């Protein structure tokens, strides 16, 4: 320990900037890890709290997917002896001038045994009889900041209606869910206003004392039949968890990469430090320090700097989590329609512990080889002036051999890549091979660059190239780090590009109606529905050629919420014919249109292992729908996957003929704007109705996609940042390492400008080598990324498309970054006292 204070601390203090830069990779890696997971967790925790608040005393919820079910189910549930209280619920999201509001339609008579909103206490509801008698009554949270009898306008299925606040809930419990953006309404009034007919979304149940959850579930299942889910309220969070899991996985990959890159930066710094501190090590050895002591010294140094970097990363990550939490919270709108805000950031101790272990271990691993080198410093040579120990040829040869072995193994894994563990092992091996080959490759590239540099500036160019060639230990770590970051950028960019390409292609074919009639500005909001009869009205409007009725609902299939799209499949096959990825296109549309099969999206098939011919069981209120998958198409409508079903089948099994979206095709020559106007004139006043043009919808899809890739851009920024830090670090180290050499250069007549140019050229050369290797590894990495996306993330084969434009942008960015990174070290190289530089060691 004392050695740390006497030996390491003065060194670290002297090279403070470098020490800080060294840990930058760790800081960023840990920050992304902690930030993303903390944000995720905080939002999830807040969400679960919201679920609890909304659920109140509810022990079980009975539901049948989004379409809900008929009222008669309620009596069946209430007749179950084990049930203490059962209350029907309708949920809907409405836009008001105060932002989105979650409306909970409940049975005001019976619901109070489940939820405590103090209907009676303290005159929070002015008059219960009036509340019930008037369908425009709302019970709102005090947090919403409105007074009793205030009027809140809302767009309903019956046009614009004004609601009256007839009760105020005190804060706490239910009233605090979604920060108070919640209102309670009588369920029967809500049915009418949201166009739900005589249907409920779900029934909340509390069991008699002494009845276990399992008993309750069994009895209720028996009572309501197989088309219903009977679950505790907490399972409500599963859908969001599925989404957040993808984000967590993506951010884990970024963290690992950042840490990996950080590892190379640390390795680089320590390798240089060992060279620089050779004489010091020699003295210590001469004074009686054992090899173990030297090794421990270096490892402890790296552990401590890793720990400091980790702690900084944790702090940074928590700060980041605050910003990210809002972003992730927005994604929750998918579930409730109201953004979930995390009031406080929940920092999990195990997460911090994991981060610390990760950071410190990464740092330790990075220091293993340099520490070993330090322990084996020959004291005799170390104490002689001006002599260097160079990296043995043997080590290089061994590395190359290992690299070749990795390449071969990775190639083998590729052949067997049907097995997931082998596939991932192959991925790791490929990256490992690249890392092992980096020193040799960068040496080779430096040699190749030598004539180019020499041509640019004979003296400086040669000097710069030679410095790279002679100091492989100095550059290889940086090049490896740069290569990894660039590979990450290329793969992320490629992933984004491929995704946009595929989505554009899908939109071109499948999203080709001229107009869309929806109940909300966003196509995915499903709180309101239209009656099917509206379709007949639309068909009569002049200029409209064809109207497709679409009902999309989330239903549990294979225990995950999947989007079932019920529509006129024959018409869909004619108008927006997606080619079958598996199965015959012709037959697929024919069978599905006849109600004899389902068209599955590729991601559904992939994520749930479904194949053509497999019979899926979809629970519905009128029994279980059993239909085979007749074809698989590349469809981007839903993250969890989608199933296209004939509308007749849906109406029959769900007893629900309502519609979310009308897809409208115009007659040739008809004017979209005027038809849109006609629709709005005919129905806009009496119905809650929006008409979106094709462009509106495409923009919406692109916007959603952008939101999804938002995180990717953050990752790219992190990767570029780490890469630039790597270059700065390498150059700072390299200059310090060569002060004497530079001193000699100046002593024998090198001009300051020449030395500056040398440093700049060296930096640019490192950048160029990193670019070449990064682009190469990026091509490999992209392949694996596309595969991972296909296998485990989105389940869609988005295709391989090398992001040339990204590469073209990256090249000048990295070269410029390298150049700017070289300015400060270049200045310090020419500023230092010549005498001191020569004496240095």
């Amino acid at each position: 320990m004392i050695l740390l204070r006497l030996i390491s601390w003065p060194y670290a203090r002297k090279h403070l900037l470098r020490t800080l830069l060294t840990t930058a990779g760790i800081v960023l890696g840990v920050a992304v890890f902690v930030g993303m997971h903390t944000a995720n967790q905080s939002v999830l925790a807040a969400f679960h709290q919201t679920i609890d608040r909304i659920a109140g005393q509810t022990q079980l919820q009975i539901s049948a997917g989004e379409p809900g079910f008929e009222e008669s189910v309620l009596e069946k549930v209430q007749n179950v002896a084990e049930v203490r209280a059962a209350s029907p619920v309708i949920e809907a999201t409405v836009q008001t001038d105060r932002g989105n509001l979650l409306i909970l339609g409940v049975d005001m008579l019976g619901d109070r045994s489940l939820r405590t909103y103090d209907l009676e206490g303290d005159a929070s509801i002015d008059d219960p009889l009036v509340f019930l008698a008037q369908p425009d009554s709302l019970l709102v949270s005090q947090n919403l900041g409105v007074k009793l009898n205030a009027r809140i306008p809302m767009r309903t299925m019956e046009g614009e209606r004004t609601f009256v606040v007839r009760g105020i809930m005190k804060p706490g419990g239910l009233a605090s869910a979604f920060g108070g953006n919640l209102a309670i309404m009588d369920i029967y009034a809500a049915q009418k206003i949201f166009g739900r007919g005589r249907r409920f979304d779900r029934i909340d149940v509390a069991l008699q004392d002494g009845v276990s959850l399992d008993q309750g579930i069994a009895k209720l299942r028996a009572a309501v039949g197989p088309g219903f889910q009977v679950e505790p309220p907490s399972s409500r969070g599963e859908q969001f968890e599925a989404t957040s899991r993808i984000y967590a996985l993506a951010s884990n990959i970024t963290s690992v990469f950042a840490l990996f890159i950080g590892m190379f930066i640390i390795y680089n710094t320590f390798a240089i430090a060992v060279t620089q501190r050779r004489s010091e090590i020699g003295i210590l050895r001469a004074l009686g320090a054992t090899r173990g002591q030297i090794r421990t010294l270096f490892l402890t140094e790296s552990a401590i700097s890793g720990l400091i970097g980790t702690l900084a990363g944790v702090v940074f990550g928590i700060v980041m989590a605050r910003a990210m939490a809002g972003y992730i919270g927005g994604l929750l709108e998918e579930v409730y329609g109201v953004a979930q805000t995390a009031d406080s950031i929940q920092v999990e101790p195990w997460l911090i512990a994991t981060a610390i272990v990760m950071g410190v271990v990464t740092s330790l691993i990075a220091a293993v080889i340099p520490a070993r080198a330090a322990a084996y410093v020959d004291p005799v040579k170390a104490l002689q002036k001006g002599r260097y120990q160079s990296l043995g040829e043997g080590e290089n040869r061994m590395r190359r051999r290992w690299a070749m072995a990795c390449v071969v193994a990775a190639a083998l894994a590729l052949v067997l890549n049907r097995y997931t563990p082998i596939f991932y092992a192959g991925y790791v091996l490929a990256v490992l091979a690249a890392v092992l080959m980096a020193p040799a490759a960068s040496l080779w590239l430096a040699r190749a660059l030598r004539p180019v540099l020499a041509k640019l500036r004979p003296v400086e160019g040669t000097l710069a190239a030679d410095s790279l060639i002679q100091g492989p230990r100095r550059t290889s770590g940086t090049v490896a780090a740069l290569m990894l970051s660039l590979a990450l950028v290329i793969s992320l960019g490629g992933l984004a590009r491929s995704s946009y390409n595929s989505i554009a292609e899908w939109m071109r074919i499948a999203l080709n109606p001229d107009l869309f009639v929806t109940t909300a500005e966003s196509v995915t909001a499903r709180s309101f529905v239209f009656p099917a009869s509206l379709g007949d009205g639309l068909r009569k409007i002049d200029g409209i050629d064809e109207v497709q009725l679409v009902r999309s609902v989330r239903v549990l299939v294979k225990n995950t919420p999947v989007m079932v799209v019920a529509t006129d499949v024959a018409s869909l096959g004619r108008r927006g014919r997606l080619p079958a990825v598996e199965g015959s296109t012709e037959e697929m549309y024919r069978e599905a249109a006849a109600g004899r099969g389902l068209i599955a999206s590729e991601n559904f098939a992939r994520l749930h292992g479904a194949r053509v011919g497999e019979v899926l069981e979809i629970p519905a209120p009128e029994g279980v729908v059993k239909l085979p998958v007749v074809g698989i198409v590349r469809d981007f409508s839903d993250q969890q996957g989608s199933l296209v079903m004939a509308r007749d089948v849906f109406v029959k099994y769900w007893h629900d003929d309502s519609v979310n979206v009308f897809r409208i095709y115009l007659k040739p020559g008809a004017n979209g704007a005027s038809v849109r106007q006609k629709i709005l004139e005919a129905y806009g006043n009496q119905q809650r109705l929006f008409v979106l043009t094709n462009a509106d919808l495409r923009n919406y899809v692109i916007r959603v996609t952008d939101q999804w890739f938002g995180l990717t851009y953050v990752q790219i920024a992190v990767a570029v940042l780490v890469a630039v830090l790597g270059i700065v670090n390498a150059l700072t180290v390299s200059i310090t390492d060569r002060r004497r050499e530079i001193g000699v250069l100046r002593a024998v007549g090198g001009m300051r400008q020449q030395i500056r140019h040398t440093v700049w050229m060296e930096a640019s050369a490192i950048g160029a080598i990193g670019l070449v290797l990064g682009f190469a590894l990026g091509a490999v990495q992209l392949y694996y990324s596309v595969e991972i996306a296909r296998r485990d993330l989105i389940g869609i084969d988005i295709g391989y498309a090398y992001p040339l434009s990204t590469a073209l942008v990256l090249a000048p960015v990295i070269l410029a970054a390298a150049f700017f990174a070289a300015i400060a070290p270049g200045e310090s190289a020419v500023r230092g006292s010549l005498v001191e530089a020569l004496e240095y060691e």
Partner: protein
Amino acid sequence: MIHLRGVFKQFDGKRKVTALEGVNLSIESGEMVSIIGPSGSGKSTLLNLIGGLDRPTEGEIEIDGSLLAKLDDDGLTRVRRDKIGFIFQFFNLLPTLTCLENVSLPLHLRGWPRKKIEERAKELLSLVQLGARMDHLPDELSGGERQRVAIARALSVYPPILLADEPTGNLDTSTGVEILRLIRDLHERLGATVLIVTHDLAVADSCRRTIHIRDGHVFQDVRR
């Protein structure tokens, strides 16, 4: 105290260099010996071998009863740590540490308790008449003073053997004389065995015994 039997040392490089060719040498406890010879004669190599910093290609070295060949690196380090003090031409002080810290360093490596280290380091610094400059950094000292700090450091555990490699080579003549006097004084007071490698004849002559090395052989062994 120190016995070398048929010691050969070759350096592998682009061409093989033989630094020592069959050196036999015995130095008894309490002797003060100078080793002299031209540049490249192998005298520094000899000192490094005796100090356990390096191993011979062939032959046996025995230090205070331990056969170095039989020891692993840690054993060698232990011999070095407990029996040998080094004094270098370029002092090899750590520039970031104060005199006191530099002197304390070997004791820290031995894991001594802090308090004892401080006592000993202060004692040693006053022994080399630097009691007043304990908190100075090496940069703030003159060459002679730096060498005295290095000597204090070499003496930290009062090792039975003191090895000095050109201790006056980097000093002006009068300071060199002063340092030599200090070494002799310590040799007499502490009874340590002292080996001084030098090419300064004046230094060599001040020792009772002088060993001349030339081309890797003991060319002459003079006792006065």
